[in-house]
Protein backbone atom coordinates (compact mmCIF):
# COMPACT_ATOMS: atom_id res chain seq x y z
CA UNK A 1 0.00 0.00 0.00
CA UNK A 2 2.44 2.63 -1.07
CA UNK A 3 1.14 6.16 -0.94
CA UNK A 4 2.20 9.30 -2.64
CA UNK A 5 4.43 11.24 -0.28
CA UNK A 6 2.55 14.44 -0.98
CA UNK A 7 -0.65 12.95 0.43
CA UNK A 8 -0.57 12.81 4.23
CA UNK A 9 -0.90 9.20 5.25
CA UNK A 10 -4.00 8.43 7.22
CA UNK A 11 -3.22 7.17 10.70
CA UNK A 12 -4.07 3.52 11.21
CA UNK A 13 -6.68 2.66 13.83
CA UNK A 14 -5.01 0.63 16.57
CA UNK A 15 -6.86 -2.22 18.23
CA UNK A 16 -6.58 -2.42 22.00
CA UNK A 17 -8.85 -3.72 24.72
CA UNK A 18 -10.18 -1.20 27.23
CA UNK A 19 -7.95 -2.62 29.97
CA UNK A 20 -4.84 -1.73 27.95
CA UNK A 21 -6.17 1.47 26.39
CA UNK A 22 -7.06 2.99 29.77
CA UNK A 23 -3.45 2.43 30.88
CA UNK A 24 -2.10 4.38 27.88
CA UNK A 25 -1.64 7.61 29.82
CA UNK A 26 1.63 8.70 28.21
CA UNK A 27 1.28 10.85 25.10
CA UNK A 28 3.88 12.28 22.75
CA UNK A 29 4.51 13.97 19.41
CA UNK A 30 7.07 13.01 16.82
CA UNK A 31 7.73 16.54 15.58
CA UNK A 32 7.77 20.07 17.02
CA UNK A 33 5.11 21.21 14.58
CA UNK A 34 2.03 22.51 16.42
CA UNK A 35 -0.17 20.48 14.12
CA UNK A 36 1.85 17.28 14.43
CA UNK A 37 -0.27 14.30 15.47
CA UNK A 38 -0.41 13.41 19.16
CA UNK A 39 0.08 9.74 19.98
CA UNK A 40 -0.94 7.78 23.01
CA UNK A 41 1.62 5.13 23.86
CA UNK A 42 0.08 1.69 24.32
CA UNK A 43 1.75 -0.29 27.13
CA UNK A 44 2.39 -3.21 24.74
CA UNK A 45 4.58 -0.90 22.66
CA UNK A 46 2.72 0.87 19.87
CA UNK A 47 1.74 4.45 19.14
CA UNK A 48 -1.94 5.21 18.70
CA UNK A 49 -3.27 8.37 17.08
CA UNK A 50 -6.53 6.64 16.26
CA UNK A 51 -8.37 3.63 17.68
CA UNK A 52 -11.20 1.42 16.51
CA UNK A 53 -13.25 -0.56 18.98
CA UNK A 54 -16.58 -2.33 19.27
CA UNK A 55 -18.42 -2.78 22.55
CA UNK A 56 -21.67 -2.40 24.39
CA UNK A 57 -22.91 1.12 24.97
CA UNK A 58 -24.29 0.89 28.50
CA UNK A 59 -24.97 4.47 29.41
CA UNK A 60 -25.14 7.91 27.84
CA UNK A 61 -25.22 11.16 29.72
CA UNK A 62 -25.20 14.81 28.75
CA UNK A 63 -22.57 16.15 31.12
CA UNK A 64 -22.26 19.58 29.50
CA UNK A 65 -23.15 22.78 31.30
CA UNK A 66 -23.93 25.45 28.72
CA UNK A 67 -23.58 23.27 25.65
CA UNK A 68 -24.39 19.63 25.08
CA UNK A 69 -21.46 17.43 25.98
CA UNK A 70 -22.18 13.73 25.75
CA UNK A 71 -20.45 11.00 27.68
CA UNK A 72 -20.83 7.38 26.65
CA UNK A 73 -19.67 4.27 28.49
CA UNK A 74 -18.74 1.46 26.13
CA UNK A 75 -17.87 -1.88 27.63
CA UNK A 76 -15.68 -4.61 26.18
CA UNK A 77 -14.79 -7.95 27.84
CA UNK A 78 -11.94 -6.28 29.77
CA UNK A 79 -13.20 -2.86 30.86
CA UNK A 80 -14.89 0.37 29.87
CA UNK A 81 -14.04 2.92 27.20
CA UNK A 82 -15.20 6.46 27.94
CA UNK A 83 -16.13 8.56 24.92
CA UNK A 84 -16.91 12.28 24.95
CA UNK A 85 -18.54 14.20 22.10
CA UNK A 86 -19.56 17.85 22.00
CA UNK A 87 -20.29 20.52 19.43
CA UNK A 88 -17.11 19.79 17.49
CA UNK A 89 -18.12 16.15 17.03
CA UNK A 90 -21.70 16.75 15.89
CA UNK A 91 -22.28 13.33 14.33
CA UNK A 92 -20.93 11.39 17.30
CA UNK A 93 -22.78 13.68 19.72
CA UNK A 94 -26.07 13.13 17.94
CA UNK A 95 -25.43 9.37 17.89
CA UNK A 96 -24.98 9.41 21.66
CA UNK A 97 -28.07 11.59 22.08
CA UNK A 98 -30.24 9.24 20.05
CA UNK A 99 -28.94 5.77 20.93
CA UNK A 100 -30.83 3.69 23.47
CA UNK A 101 -28.45 1.66 25.65
CA UNK A 102 -27.72 -1.15 25.76
CA UNK A 103 -26.52 -1.46 22.16
CA UNK A 104 -23.50 -2.78 20.34
CA UNK A 105 -21.58 0.11 18.82
CA UNK A 106 -18.47 0.58 16.68
CA UNK A 107 -16.34 3.62 17.45
CA UNK A 108 -13.55 5.25 15.47
CA UNK A 109 -11.83 7.96 17.44
CA UNK A 110 -8.77 9.66 18.85
CA UNK A 111 -7.23 8.94 22.25
CA UNK A 112 -7.36 11.88 24.65
CA UNK A 113 -5.82 12.20 28.10
CA UNK A 114 -6.36 14.68 30.88
CA UNK A 115 -5.08 15.11 34.35
CA UNK A 116 -7.52 15.06 37.23
CA UNK A 117 -7.25 17.30 40.27
CA UNK A 118 -5.50 14.56 42.22
CA UNK A 119 -2.82 14.31 39.52
CA UNK A 120 -3.84 11.01 37.97
CA UNK A 121 -4.20 10.74 34.21
CA UNK A 122 -7.48 9.63 32.65
CA UNK A 123 -7.64 8.25 29.12
CA UNK A 124 -10.74 8.67 26.97
CA UNK A 125 -11.78 8.73 23.33
CA UNK A 126 -12.94 11.63 21.19
CA UNK A 127 -15.10 9.83 18.66
CA UNK A 128 -15.08 10.51 14.92
CA UNK A 129 -17.99 8.16 14.39
CA UNK A 130 -20.28 5.93 16.44
CA UNK A 131 -22.54 3.45 14.68
CA UNK A 132 -24.73 0.61 15.89
CA UNK A 133 -23.58 -2.82 14.80
CA UNK A 134 -24.48 -6.45 15.46
CA UNK A 135 -23.03 -9.01 17.87
CA UNK A 136 -21.06 -10.73 15.10
CA UNK A 137 -19.13 -7.52 14.40
CA UNK A 138 -18.42 -7.18 18.12
CA UNK A 139 -17.14 -10.77 18.30
CA UNK A 140 -14.95 -10.22 15.26
CA UNK A 141 -13.42 -7.15 16.90
CA UNK A 142 -12.65 -9.10 20.09
CA UNK A 143 -10.88 -11.83 18.08
CA UNK A 144 -9.01 -9.29 15.94
CA UNK A 145 -7.97 -7.19 18.93
CA UNK A 146 -6.74 -10.33 20.68
CA UNK A 147 -4.48 -11.11 17.71
CA UNK A 148 -3.19 -7.56 17.34
CA UNK A 149 -2.43 -7.34 21.06
CA UNK A 150 -0.51 -10.63 20.99
CA UNK A 151 1.40 -9.42 17.91
CA UNK A 152 2.51 -6.40 19.92
CA UNK A 153 3.48 -8.47 22.95
CA UNK A 154 5.51 -10.79 20.72
CA UNK A 155 7.33 -7.83 19.18
CA UNK A 156 7.94 -6.23 22.59
CA UNK A 157 11.49 -7.56 22.91
CA UNK A 158 12.61 -6.67 19.38
CA UNK A 159 15.67 -4.44 19.58
CA UNK A 160 14.38 -2.25 16.77
CA UNK A 161 10.98 -1.67 18.37
CA UNK A 162 11.28 1.93 19.53
CA UNK A 163 7.74 2.11 20.91
CA UNK A 164 8.37 -0.97 23.03
CA UNK A 165 11.47 0.78 24.36
CA UNK A 166 9.36 3.84 25.21
CA UNK A 167 6.71 1.62 26.82
CA UNK A 168 9.37 -0.04 28.95
CA UNK A 169 10.49 3.38 30.21
CA UNK A 170 6.97 4.65 30.83
CA UNK A 171 5.12 1.60 32.07
CA UNK A 172 7.64 -1.10 32.95
CA UNK A 173 9.03 -4.03 31.05
CA UNK A 174 6.45 -6.76 31.47
CA UNK A 175 3.46 -6.72 29.12
CA UNK A 176 2.39 -10.27 30.06
CA UNK A 177 -0.59 -8.99 32.08
CA UNK A 178 -2.12 -7.91 28.77
CA UNK A 179 -1.78 -11.47 27.45
CA UNK A 180 -3.91 -12.50 30.42
CA UNK A 181 -6.43 -9.84 29.41
CA UNK A 182 -6.47 -11.28 25.90
CA UNK A 183 -7.07 -14.79 27.20
CA UNK A 184 -9.99 -13.69 29.35
CA UNK A 185 -11.49 -11.70 26.48
CA UNK A 186 -11.35 -14.73 24.18
CA UNK A 187 -12.81 -16.99 26.85
CA UNK A 188 -15.73 -14.59 27.15
CA UNK A 189 -16.55 -15.21 23.48
CA UNK A 190 -17.42 -18.83 24.16
CA UNK A 191 -21.11 -19.42 24.64
CA UNK A 192 -21.82 -15.93 25.86
CA UNK A 193 -24.67 -14.18 24.13
CA UNK A 194 -26.06 -11.72 26.62
CA UNK A 195 -25.15 -8.06 26.69
CA UNK A 196 -22.57 -7.65 29.44
CA UNK A 197 -23.31 -5.28 32.26
CA UNK A 198 -21.18 -2.27 33.00
CA UNK A 199 -18.17 -2.90 35.16
CA UNK A 200 -17.25 -0.89 38.18
CA UNK A 201 -15.05 1.68 36.47
CA UNK A 202 -15.75 5.22 37.56
CA UNK A 203 -16.38 7.96 35.09
CA UNK A 204 -14.09 10.94 35.42
CA UNK A 205 -15.63 13.01 38.15
CA UNK A 206 -16.00 16.32 36.41
CA UNK A 207 -16.96 14.65 33.17
CA UNK A 208 -15.03 16.99 30.94
CA UNK A 209 -11.65 15.69 29.81
CA UNK A 210 -11.15 18.51 27.34
CA UNK A 211 -11.62 21.34 29.79
Amino acid at each position, binding site marked *: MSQDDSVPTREV*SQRAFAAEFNDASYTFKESDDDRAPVYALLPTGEKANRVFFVGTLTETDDVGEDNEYWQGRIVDPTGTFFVYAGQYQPEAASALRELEPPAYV*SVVGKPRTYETDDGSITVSVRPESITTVDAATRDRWVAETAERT*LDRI*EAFDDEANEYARMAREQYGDDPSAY*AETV*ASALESLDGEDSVPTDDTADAPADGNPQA
Partner: protein
Amino acid sequence: MTELQTHAAEIAAQFSDHIDVETDEIEQRLDQVVSEYKIPIDEARRTVTNSLLDEADIDRDELGRGGAETVLVDEIDQDEQWVDVTVKVVDLWEPRSDSISQVGLVGDESGRIKFVAFETSELDELEEGASYKLGNVVTDEYQGDYSIKLNRTTTITELDEDVEVGDSTTTVDGALVDVQSGSGLIKRCPEEGCTRVLQNGRCSEHGEVDGEFDLRIKAVLDDGHEVQDVIFNREATEELTGIGLEDAKQQAQDALDTSVVADGIRTDILGRYYRVTGPTLGRYVLANEFEQLDSPTDTDAVLTKARSLQ
Protein backbone atom coordinates in the same frame (compact mmCIF):
# COMPACT_ATOMS: atom_id res chain seq x y z
CA MET B 1 19.23 -9.26 -30.62
CA THR B 2 20.60 -5.76 -31.13
CA GLU B 3 18.33 -2.77 -31.27
CA LEU B 4 18.78 -2.55 -35.01
CA GLN B 5 17.89 -6.20 -35.48
CA THR B 6 14.71 -5.62 -33.51
CA HIS B 7 13.69 -2.72 -35.65
CA ALA B 8 14.62 -4.64 -38.77
CA ALA B 9 12.54 -7.62 -37.67
CA GLU B 10 9.57 -5.37 -36.98
CA ILE B 11 9.81 -3.82 -40.42
CA ALA B 12 10.22 -7.25 -42.01
CA ALA B 13 7.10 -8.40 -40.17
CA GLN B 14 5.15 -5.47 -41.56
CA PHE B 15 6.14 -6.37 -45.11
CA SER B 16 5.95 -10.12 -44.75
CA ASP B 17 2.54 -10.36 -46.41
CA HIS B 18 3.59 -8.28 -49.39
CA ILE B 19 7.15 -8.77 -50.45
CA ASP B 20 9.93 -11.18 -49.83
CA VAL B 21 12.47 -9.16 -47.96
CA GLU B 22 15.06 -10.51 -45.54
CA THR B 23 15.54 -9.06 -42.10
CA ASP B 24 19.28 -8.95 -42.78
CA GLU B 25 18.80 -6.74 -45.77
CA ILE B 26 16.61 -4.34 -43.83
CA GLU B 27 19.11 -4.28 -41.03
CA GLN B 28 21.85 -3.34 -43.47
CA ARG B 29 19.77 -0.53 -44.85
CA LEU B 30 18.96 0.72 -41.36
CA ASP B 31 22.58 0.46 -40.36
CA GLN B 32 23.60 2.51 -43.35
CA VAL B 33 21.35 5.47 -42.56
CA VAL B 34 21.97 5.29 -38.85
CA SER B 35 25.77 4.80 -38.91
CA GLU B 36 26.77 6.73 -41.97
CA TYR B 37 24.24 9.50 -42.01
CA LYS B 38 23.70 9.73 -38.24
CA ILE B 39 19.96 9.68 -38.58
CA PRO B 40 17.91 8.93 -35.45
CA ILE B 41 16.50 5.43 -35.44
CA ASP B 42 12.85 6.48 -35.70
CA GLU B 43 13.63 8.55 -38.73
CA ALA B 44 15.73 5.75 -40.16
CA ARG B 45 12.81 3.34 -39.84
CA ARG B 46 10.61 5.79 -41.68
CA THR B 47 13.15 6.20 -44.45
CA VAL B 48 13.70 2.49 -44.92
CA THR B 49 10.00 1.72 -44.73
CA ASN B 50 9.20 4.37 -47.33
CA SER B 51 11.87 3.14 -49.72
CA LEU B 52 10.56 -0.41 -49.38
CA LEU B 53 7.01 0.83 -50.03
CA ASP B 54 8.26 2.56 -53.18
CA GLU B 55 10.14 -0.45 -54.39
CA ALA B 56 7.22 -2.78 -53.86
CA ASP B 57 4.77 -0.19 -55.19
CA ILE B 58 2.33 -0.57 -52.32
CA ASP B 59 0.43 1.95 -50.24
CA ARG B 60 1.29 2.51 -46.61
CA ASP B 61 -2.33 1.73 -45.74
CA GLU B 62 -1.99 -1.75 -47.15
CA LEU B 63 0.76 -2.61 -44.73
CA GLY B 64 -0.48 -5.23 -42.36
CA ARG B 65 -0.68 -4.65 -38.67
CA GLY B 66 2.38 -2.53 -38.72
CA GLY B 67 2.97 -0.79 -35.45
CA ALA B 68 0.79 -3.18 -33.54
CA GLU B 69 -0.71 -1.50 -30.50
CA THR B 70 1.20 -1.84 -27.25
CA VAL B 71 -1.15 -3.14 -24.58
CA LEU B 72 -1.19 -4.43 -21.02
CA VAL B 73 -2.21 -8.06 -20.81
CA ASP B 74 -5.39 -7.38 -18.88
CA GLU B 75 -6.50 -4.97 -21.62
CA ILE B 76 -6.73 -7.87 -24.06
CA ASP B 77 -10.43 -8.46 -24.56
CA GLN B 78 -10.79 -9.24 -28.26
CA ASP B 79 -9.96 -12.19 -30.46
CA GLU B 80 -7.40 -11.92 -33.26
CA GLN B 81 -5.86 -8.57 -32.43
CA TRP B 82 -2.23 -7.89 -33.29
CA VAL B 83 -0.52 -6.40 -30.26
CA ASP B 84 2.83 -5.76 -28.62
CA VAL B 85 3.35 -6.65 -24.97
CA THR B 86 6.18 -6.19 -22.48
CA VAL B 87 6.16 -9.16 -20.16
CA LYS B 88 8.04 -11.50 -17.90
CA VAL B 89 7.82 -15.27 -18.36
CA VAL B 90 6.14 -16.43 -15.17
CA ASP B 91 5.75 -20.13 -15.88
CA LEU B 92 6.60 -22.59 -18.64
CA TRP B 93 4.42 -25.67 -19.06
CA GLU B 94 4.95 -28.98 -20.82
CA PRO B 95 3.59 -28.66 -24.39
CA ARG B 96 0.88 -31.24 -25.05
CA SER B 97 1.33 -31.24 -28.78
CA ASP B 98 4.32 -31.66 -31.06
CA SER B 99 3.34 -28.56 -33.01
CA ILE B 100 3.76 -26.38 -29.92
CA SER B 101 7.29 -25.35 -29.05
CA GLN B 102 6.49 -23.46 -25.86
CA VAL B 103 3.45 -22.78 -23.72
CA GLY B 104 3.14 -21.03 -20.39
CA LEU B 105 2.25 -17.84 -18.57
CA VAL B 106 3.60 -14.35 -19.09
CA GLY B 107 2.69 -11.30 -17.04
CA ASP B 108 3.05 -7.56 -16.68
CA GLU B 109 1.94 -5.06 -14.06
CA SER B 110 -1.69 -5.59 -14.99
CA GLY B 111 -1.81 -9.37 -14.65
CA ARG B 112 -0.98 -12.65 -16.36
CA ILE B 113 -1.91 -14.30 -19.64
CA LYS B 114 -1.26 -17.66 -21.32
CA PHE B 115 1.06 -17.68 -24.32
CA VAL B 116 1.69 -20.28 -27.02
CA ALA B 117 4.56 -20.50 -29.52
CA PHE B 118 4.54 -22.94 -32.44
CA GLU B 119 7.35 -25.06 -33.87
CA THR B 120 6.72 -23.72 -37.36
CA SER B 121 7.43 -20.15 -36.28
CA GLU B 122 11.05 -21.07 -35.48
CA LEU B 123 11.38 -18.48 -32.75
CA ASP B 124 14.03 -18.14 -30.09
CA GLU B 125 13.00 -19.88 -26.89
CA LEU B 126 11.74 -17.81 -23.98
CA GLU B 127 13.34 -18.40 -20.61
CA GLU B 128 11.42 -18.59 -17.38
CA GLY B 129 11.96 -15.48 -15.23
CA ALA B 130 13.30 -13.40 -18.13
CA SER B 131 11.56 -10.25 -19.38
CA TYR B 132 10.85 -9.57 -23.04
CA LYS B 133 9.22 -7.16 -25.39
CA LEU B 134 7.11 -9.32 -27.69
CA GLY B 135 6.20 -7.51 -30.89
CA ASN B 136 3.38 -8.61 -33.14
CA VAL B 137 1.63 -11.32 -31.19
CA VAL B 138 -1.96 -12.35 -31.90
CA THR B 139 -4.68 -12.53 -29.29
CA ASP B 140 -6.83 -15.63 -29.04
CA GLU B 141 -10.00 -16.34 -27.15
CA TYR B 142 -11.30 -19.65 -25.82
CA GLN B 143 -14.45 -19.79 -23.71
CA GLY B 144 -13.96 -16.25 -22.51
CA ASP B 145 -10.31 -16.71 -21.58
CA TYR B 146 -7.71 -14.85 -23.59
CA SER B 147 -4.23 -15.93 -24.59
CA ILE B 148 -1.56 -14.68 -26.96
CA LYS B 149 -0.02 -16.62 -29.83
CA LEU B 150 3.52 -15.97 -30.97
CA ASN B 151 3.99 -16.35 -34.70
CA ARG B 152 6.51 -16.15 -37.51
CA THR B 153 6.43 -12.35 -37.48
CA THR B 154 6.77 -12.01 -33.72
CA THR B 155 9.83 -10.14 -32.53
CA ILE B 156 11.39 -11.18 -29.26
CA THR B 157 13.59 -8.67 -27.47
CA GLU B 158 15.05 -9.67 -24.15
CA LEU B 159 15.04 -6.77 -21.71
CA ASP B 160 17.63 -5.92 -19.11
CA GLU B 161 15.06 -4.59 -16.69
CA ASP B 162 12.77 -6.90 -14.79
CA VAL B 163 9.09 -6.57 -15.65
CA GLU B 164 7.01 -6.54 -12.50
CA VAL B 165 4.14 -8.95 -12.64
CA GLY B 166 1.01 -7.75 -10.89
CA ASP B 167 -2.06 -9.53 -9.80
CA SER B 168 -5.04 -8.30 -11.70
CA THR B 169 -6.95 -7.97 -8.48
CA THR B 170 -6.29 -7.25 -4.83
CA THR B 171 -8.28 -8.38 -1.84
CA VAL B 172 -8.38 -6.31 1.34
CA ASP B 173 -10.04 -7.04 4.66
CA GLY B 174 -10.70 -4.49 7.34
CA ALA B 175 -13.04 -2.39 9.36
CA LEU B 176 -14.69 0.36 7.35
CA VAL B 177 -13.52 3.33 9.41
CA ASP B 178 -14.38 6.29 7.19
CA VAL B 179 -16.75 7.34 4.43
CA GLN B 180 -15.04 10.25 2.71
CA SER B 181 -16.40 13.42 1.19
CA GLY B 182 -17.45 12.95 -2.41
CA SER B 183 -19.50 9.89 -1.42
CA GLY B 184 -23.23 9.36 -1.86
CA LEU B 185 -25.24 11.21 -4.47
CA ILE B 186 -22.80 13.11 -6.68
CA LYS B 187 -22.92 14.92 -10.03
CA ARG B 188 -20.55 14.22 -12.87
CA CYS B 189 -19.57 16.40 -15.83
CA PRO B 190 -21.67 15.42 -18.86
CA GLU B 191 -19.01 16.42 -21.41
CA GLU B 192 -17.98 13.65 -23.79
CA GLY B 193 -15.26 11.53 -22.18
CA CYS B 194 -15.20 13.63 -19.00
CA THR B 195 -16.61 12.04 -15.89
CA ARG B 196 -15.15 14.45 -13.37
CA VAL B 197 -17.15 14.92 -10.20
CA LEU B 198 -18.56 18.44 -9.96
CA GLN B 199 -17.74 20.72 -7.04
CA ASN B 200 -20.60 23.16 -6.45
CA GLY B 201 -21.87 22.53 -9.98
CA ARG B 202 -18.50 23.19 -11.57
CA CYS B 203 -16.22 20.83 -13.47
CA SER B 204 -12.52 21.61 -12.99
CA GLU B 205 -12.07 21.24 -16.77
CA HIS B 206 -15.35 22.44 -18.30
CA GLY B 207 -16.59 25.01 -15.80
CA GLU B 208 -20.26 25.33 -14.94
CA VAL B 209 -22.19 22.42 -16.44
CA ASP B 210 -25.51 20.67 -15.96
CA GLY B 211 -24.23 17.57 -14.17
CA GLU B 212 -25.51 14.03 -14.28
CA PHE B 213 -26.34 12.26 -11.02
CA ASP B 214 -24.33 9.23 -9.96
CA LEU B 215 -23.82 7.21 -6.80
CA ARG B 216 -20.54 6.12 -5.32
CA ILE B 217 -18.76 5.56 -2.02
CA LYS B 218 -15.16 6.43 -1.22
CA ALA B 219 -14.30 4.60 1.96
CA VAL B 220 -11.31 3.54 4.06
CA LEU B 221 -10.71 -0.04 5.16
CA ASP B 222 -8.39 -0.42 8.14
CA ASP B 223 -7.11 -3.74 9.51
CA GLY B 224 -5.09 -2.27 12.37
CA HIS B 225 -1.83 -2.51 10.39
CA GLU B 226 -2.61 -0.62 7.19
CA VAL B 227 -5.28 1.55 5.64
CA GLN B 228 -6.61 1.10 2.12
CA ASP B 229 -8.87 3.46 0.17
CA VAL B 230 -11.67 1.69 -1.68
CA ILE B 231 -14.29 2.91 -4.14
CA PHE B 232 -17.75 1.43 -4.63
CA ASN B 233 -19.27 2.46 -7.96
CA ARG B 234 -23.01 2.94 -8.50
CA GLU B 235 -23.71 -0.76 -8.92
CA ALA B 236 -21.60 -1.77 -5.91
CA THR B 237 -23.11 1.03 -3.80
CA GLU B 238 -26.58 -0.19 -4.64
CA GLU B 239 -25.66 -3.75 -3.72
CA LEU B 240 -23.95 -2.66 -0.50
CA THR B 241 -26.59 -0.27 0.79
CA GLY B 242 -29.75 -1.27 -1.09
CA ILE B 243 -30.06 2.35 -2.22
CA GLY B 244 -30.47 2.82 -5.97
CA LEU B 245 -29.88 6.00 -7.92
CA GLU B 246 -33.60 6.78 -8.12
CA ASP B 247 -34.07 6.20 -4.34
CA ALA B 248 -31.11 8.44 -3.67
CA LYS B 249 -32.49 11.23 -5.86
CA GLN B 250 -35.85 10.91 -4.12
CA GLN B 251 -34.21 11.09 -0.67
CA ALA B 252 -32.27 14.19 -1.70
CA GLN B 253 -35.39 15.80 -3.17
CA ASP B 254 -37.43 15.16 -0.02
CA ALA B 255 -34.70 16.58 2.19
CA LEU B 256 -33.77 19.37 -0.25
CA ASP B 257 -30.19 18.25 0.40
CA THR B 258 -28.00 15.64 -1.29
CA SER B 259 -25.95 15.04 1.85
CA VAL B 260 -28.73 12.95 3.43
CA VAL B 261 -27.75 10.14 1.07
CA ALA B 262 -24.16 10.00 2.34
CA ASP B 263 -25.41 10.31 5.94
CA GLY B 264 -27.64 7.29 5.46
CA ILE B 265 -24.82 5.33 3.87
CA ARG B 266 -22.53 6.15 6.81
CA THR B 267 -25.03 4.78 9.29
CA ASP B 268 -25.34 1.59 7.22
CA ILE B 269 -21.70 0.71 6.66
CA LEU B 270 -19.36 2.50 9.12
CA GLY B 271 -17.80 0.31 11.77
CA ARG B 272 -18.47 -3.02 10.02
CA TYR B 273 -15.89 -5.40 8.64
CA TYR B 274 -15.68 -6.00 4.90
CA ARG B 275 -13.61 -7.96 2.41
CA VAL B 276 -13.25 -6.11 -0.88
CA THR B 277 -11.78 -7.53 -4.10
CA GLY B 278 -11.00 -5.63 -7.26
CA PRO B 279 -8.36 -3.98 -9.43
CA THR B 280 -6.09 -1.30 -8.01
CA LEU B 281 -6.37 2.16 -9.52
CA GLY B 282 -3.88 4.62 -8.09
CA ARG B 283 -4.41 4.59 -4.34
CA TYR B 284 -7.83 2.96 -4.62
CA VAL B 285 -9.07 -0.59 -4.85
CA LEU B 286 -12.24 -0.70 -6.94
CA ALA B 287 -14.81 -2.84 -5.18
CA ASN B 288 -15.86 -5.30 -7.87
CA GLU B 289 -16.74 -7.87 -5.26
CA PHE B 290 -17.27 -7.48 -1.56
CA GLU B 291 -18.80 -9.17 1.43
CA GLN B 292 -19.46 -8.21 5.00
CA LEU B 293 -17.41 -10.28 7.44
CA ASP B 294 -19.13 -11.44 10.56
CA SER B 295 -18.24 -13.76 13.40
CA PRO B 296 -14.61 -14.76 13.69
CA THR B 297 -13.70 -18.32 12.89
CA ASP B 298 -11.85 -20.51 15.33
CA THR B 299 -10.11 -18.52 18.06
CA ASP B 300 -8.62 -21.51 19.90
CA ALA B 301 -5.14 -21.04 18.44
CA VAL B 302 -5.09 -17.40 19.52
CA LEU B 303 -6.24 -18.37 22.99
CA THR B 304 -3.47 -20.95 23.27
CA LYS B 305 -0.95 -18.33 22.22
CA ALA B 306 -2.33 -15.82 24.74
CA ARG B 307 -1.89 -18.36 27.53
CA SER B 308 1.66 -19.12 26.45
CA LEU B 309 2.60 -15.43 26.61
CA GLN B 310 1.38 -14.87 30.15
